[in-house]
C-alpha cells in the first residue's frame, strides 16, 4: 500500500462525423470511472453532424485531471486518413497509433511510433455493419495498452445500450470489440 505510483493515461480519437469517434471516447471515459478516481472527456467537432472533423480526448487518472485538453497524446486511435494527416505529428515520441487501414492509403510519416493497423471498416462490413468499425479499433487499443480490462468496457457498453433501448445491438457491438481485441 502506498507503494503504487499514481496512474494517469490519455488517449485521443479522431475521424469524421458519423464514425463513432465521440462514442468510443465516452465509452472509455464511462468505463474508466469504474477503475480511476478522475476522468475527463473532451470533444471537438464541426457544426454539422456527419462528415465534419471530429476529435475527442480522454484522460483517466488517480489524481485530479490537470488538463482535459491534450496537447500531445500518448495514444491515438485514427479512423480515417484526413484525421491521420492532422494528428500524426501530435503523438508523443514512442506513442501508440492504432489506425484504420481500410481508410488510410498512405505510409506513416513518422518512424518513432508504436503503430498498429487493421482494416476495421472491412472487418465491420463482414460483421454486417460498417458502423461498428470504431469498436474494432477500440478492441485493438485495449489489447495493446492494458489501460482498462475489456470486461469493464463490455459491461459499460451493455449498460449504455440498455439505457438507450438498443439491447438488440449488444451482440454485434461485443463481436466488433472482441474482433479487434483478438486480432492483436
Amino acid at each position: 500500500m502506498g507503494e503504487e505510483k499514481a496512474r494517469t493515461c490519455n488517449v485521443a480519437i479522431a475521424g469524421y462525423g458519423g464514425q463513432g469517434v465521440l462514442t468510443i471516447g465516452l465509452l472509455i471515459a464511462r468505463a474508466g470511472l469504474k477503475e480511476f478516481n478522475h476522468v475527463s472527456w473532451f470533444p471537438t467537432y464541426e457544426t454539422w453532424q456527419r462528415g465534419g472533423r471530429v476529435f475527442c480526448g480522454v484522460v483517466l487518472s488517480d489524481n485530479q485531471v490537470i488538463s482535459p485538453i491534450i496537447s500531445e497524446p500518448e495514444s491515438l486511435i485514427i479512423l480515417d486518413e484526413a484525421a491521420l494527416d492532422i494528428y500524426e505529428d501530435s503523438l508523443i515520441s514512442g506513442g501508440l497509433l492504432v489506425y484504420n487501414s481500410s481508410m488510410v492509403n498512405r505510409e506513416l510519416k513518422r518512424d518513432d511510433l508504436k503503430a498498429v493497423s487493421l482494416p476495421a471498416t472491412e472487418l465491420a462490413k463482414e460483421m454486417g455493419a460498417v458502423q461498428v468499425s470504431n469498436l474494432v479499433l477500440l478492441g485493438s487499443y485495449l489489447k495493446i495498452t492494458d489501460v482498462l480490462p475489456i470486461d469493464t468496457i463490455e459491461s459499460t457498453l451493455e449498460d449504455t445500450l440498455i439505457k438507450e433501448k438498443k439491447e438488440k445491438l449488444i451482440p454485434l457491438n461485443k463481436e466488433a470489440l472482441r474482433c479487434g481485441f483478438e486480432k492483436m
Partner: protein
Amino acid sequence: MVEKVLISGNEAIGYGAIYADCTHYFGYPITPQNELIEFMAREFPKLGRTFVQAESEFASINMVCGAAATGVRAMTSTASTAFSLMQEGISGIASMELPCVIVDVQRGGPGAGSTQHSQMDYLLATRGAHGGYKNIVLAPFSVQEAYELVQVAFYLADKYRIHVILLSDGILGQMYESVELKKLEFPPLPEKDWAVTGSAAHGYNRFFIHNSPGIIGSYYDYMKRSDEKYKKIAEEEVRYETYEIEDADIVLISYGSTARVTLEAMYLARDQGIKAGFLRPITLWPFPRKIINTMAGSKKKFLVVEDCMGQMIEDVELAVEGKAKIGLVGSMDRNLPTGSGMILSKKVLEKIKDFV
C-alpha cells in the same frame, strides 16, 4: 459516500441549480449551452419546478426578472450572441436589485460568430450594459467547480440582492468530467422582505418593484446603496486560487477552460526549471487586484492566457499599475487559426520561454 457521476459542464450547472433549490428556469436553445436547457427541460418538471422555453432570450431574461421579483430562485442560461440580447433586461434587473443567476457559455463572436468555444465575453460580463451597475462574475474551470459555483452564485445573489453571472465557455460546457454531487452548505440569508408576493404580505398597502430609481424615489439613495454594496462585495468576496507563486519569476493568469491548459503549462515549465506560478481568478468581478498588485511589487512578470484578443489582460494591467511586464497568450495562439482550434499547453509553454 457521495455519488460520483460523469457529466458535462453544462449538465453540472443544471445539477448545481437543482441542489441550490432554484425553482424557476427560463431559456432559449443556443449552442454551446444546449445540454443545459435540455437538462432543465427534462429534470425541472419531474421535480415540480418551473421550466419555460421562452420565445427569445429577450423574453427569458425578462421572465427571470419577473420571477426573481417574487423572491424565488430564478435563472437563465445562454451563449454569447444571445447574452448580448439579454443586456437590456440585465440592466433592468440591476436597477431593481433582483437576485438571480445568468449563465453565459461563451462561444466565438462578434455577431453570430461561431458555434465553437471562446472567451470573448469577459468585458461584457464584467462591465455590463448601460447604467454603471456592477455584478458578481464567477468563472469555473472544471465540471466539478461549475456544479459548485452555481450554488455559490445563488447564495451570493441572495446575500447581496444582486444578479450573478456564471461565465463558462464552450469547452467547459461540452466536456465531461467525473463529479461528486454534494450539496454545499451556506450561512443563513437575509429575509426577502422586498419581494412582491401580494399586498396582503405588506398590510394591503401598494407594494411594487420598479426599474426607475432616478424617477421614482431618491436617485441619491439608490446610488449610495449600490456604491456601499459594490464596495462591500469588492472587499469581501474576491475569490482566486494560486499555485506555486511564492518563488515564481513568471506568474500565469487564466480563468475558465484555458486555466486547465495553463496549469498544465505551468507544471511543464517547472519540469524544465522555469520558476512559473499560476493565479486563477474565480471571481472576475470582483477581480483579485490586491494579490496581483502585491506580486507586481516583487518584480514578477505576468502572462495572461485567455481565448480572445485580450480582455482580462486589461484588469491585470489595472492591478499591476505599470510595475511589471505583462504578456498575452490569446486566440491568435490557437493551434489552428480556426473556430475549432484552441490554445494548447505546448503553445503556452513556448510563450513562457519567450517571455522569461
